[in-house]
């Protein structure tokens, strides 16, 4: 087996555009789950409306890509209002179930033949980010160190993705280290206490849902700009669980948690993927047990197992403090 190849694949995965997209989604979720204590299990819905906001604006209505980004952000705000307005007054369980249901509703509607004129149905929409790629300042060619290389195209997407991640991280840092952030964290601890001190908890939760949702929608945009293809089935509920896994891995409620989580998560996932495929190709694992097609399923199973073990044995993640988990009475 070629461990150098496996390792370079893993590093490429850890710093590639996909990891950046997931990091953005996780930064949004961190505002919801990590700081406000909102159980949003439909982060993928925000990614979807962001992605399709861009794709539909450009492919169907012929608008400019940048206007499409604005449309995507507006869609995320509307979605947050629609989801939050009825559920944020209720127990946290309701938001969890309403958000995951909303994610599925949107995916099903977007992929239906009914919506095909607008969304392209199961086929999705393609090639809507040309405007972005035309701005690519990197001359054609491969860039990188040793066997870790990216095309000029990938590099440009990475600049966008990680640039947005950096911006969002600074933004969240400023928010959280302010009186606004203090109110948000107090809601996570005990919303009735916050209420008894005159804070309008409902409005703060709604603001948190909107902010995190908008950041999540940027994650969706980076995802589809990277592939130049928006397909409803890439916005499966499992995406949300991946985002949760990497957020918990990095440390929920820590500024750098989503960033570190995304890098480590994709490193580990791609590493095991590559390892497994090589092992199958080299005949170490009989293809009767796990053939190449099942390798994808193994990835999901391992992520599931990882999430389970993480929550059982180290729920505070890499960056979290153990003592804070003990204080977490929920």
């Amino acid at each position, binding site marked *: 087996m070629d461990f150098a190849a496996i390792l370079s694949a893993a590093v490429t995965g850890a710093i590639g555009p996909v990891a950046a997209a997931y990091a953005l989604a996780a930064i949004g979720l961190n505002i919801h789950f990590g700081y406000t204590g909102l159980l949003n299990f439909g982060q993928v819905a925000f990614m979807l409306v962001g992605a399709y906001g861009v794709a539909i604006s450009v492919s169907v209505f012929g608008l400019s890509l940048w206007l499409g980004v604005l449309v995507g952000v507006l869609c995320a705000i509307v979605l947050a209002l629609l989801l939050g307005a009825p559920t944020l007054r209720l127990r946290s369980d309701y938001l969890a179930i309403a958000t995951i249901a909303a994610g599925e509703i949107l995916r099903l509607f977007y992929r239906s033949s009914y919506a095909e004129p607008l969304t392209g149905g199961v086929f999705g929409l393609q090639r809507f980010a040309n405007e972005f790629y035309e701005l690519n300042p990197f001359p054609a060619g491969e860039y990188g160190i040793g066997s870790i290389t990216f095309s000029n195209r990938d590099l440009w997407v990475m600049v966008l993705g990680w640039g947005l991640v950096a911006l969002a991280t600074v933004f969240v840092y400023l928010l959280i280290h302010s*009186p606004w952030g203090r109110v948000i964290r107090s809601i996570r*601890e005990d919303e*009735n206490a916050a209420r*008894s*001190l005159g804070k*309008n908890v409902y409005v703060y939760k709604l603001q948190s849902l909107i902010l995190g949702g908008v950041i999540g929608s940027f994650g969706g945009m980076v995802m589809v700009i990277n592939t130049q293809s928006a397909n409803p089935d890439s916005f499966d509920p499992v995406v949300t669980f991946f985002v949760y896994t990497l957020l918990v891995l990095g440390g929920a409620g820590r500024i750098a948690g989503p960033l570190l989580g995304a890098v480590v998560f994709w490193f580990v996932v791609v590493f095991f993927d590559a390892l497994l495929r090589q092992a199958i190709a080299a005949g170490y694992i009989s293809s009767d047990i796990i053939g190449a097609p099942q390798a994808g399923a193994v990835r999901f199973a391992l992520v599931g197992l990882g999430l389970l073990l993480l929550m059982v044995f180290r729920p505070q993640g890499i960056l979290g403090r153990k003592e804070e988990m003990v*204080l*977490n009475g929920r």
Partner: protein
Amino acid sequence: MVDESTATLSNVAAEPGASKPDPILAADGVRRSFGGLNAVDVDHLELQRGAITALIGPNGAGKTTLFNVLTGFDRPSAGNWSFAGTELRGMAAHRVARLGMVRTFQLTKALARLTVLENLQLAATNQRGEGMFASLVRPLWRGQENRYRELADELLARFRLDHLREAHAGTLSGGQRKLLELARALMTRPRMLMLDEPMAGVNPALAQSLLEHITSLRDEGMTVCFVEHDMDMVMTTSDWVVCLAEGSVIAEGPPRAIGANPAVIDAYLGKHHDEPSSPEQPS
């Protein structure tokens, strides 16, 4: 001023629903029922401004439910009440608190993963940095934040919590949490404090200092209403006592008179103190 408020109360008839010379809170026909049971059914109740009123009654008398209703944490089935001239019915809890009627909870709600200092800073009112957009521009709120931090430090020193300033509130003992909650409530600069069992689970030494804090607050002109089981504390601290049983006010009066009131003795002794069939736990 102290003498004034107690003196004015001495002319008030010791009977349920008695009107006070200067009520800050007045409730009429407030009822809260759970599945047919009336947890609270108060015909009329007034609380005197600047006095300490104790709310007593056997378990399940509806004291906490009345607290919840008055402070906007629960919706009544019927009734109206006003605080300092403002009708409160239907008002959300946070707006009631902003009017100056601030409560604490029977089970303390220390914000565990915030530091003690942050707990207090949070409570300050009208913070410019609490706006979503303003929070991003530090110069807009830095000055105010510093002033509030000084205020918080003063309160922490007054409640002898200053050595715990940077500790997570979740690491505090039960008594310290009660103190923190009281200090936090004061940080909002309330006009009236509603304390739900402020002494429960507090060791005697701390209890004594809590008591002193409460009376000195009254001396500074604050109105206080508290729920308490400890009759010693009720007798020594309060200016006026209201006794609730099965949701209704069955007696009120100055502490000494209430101790001898047959209806109160009945309510406490005629029923078992720990009767489990409390209407506060709807089946």
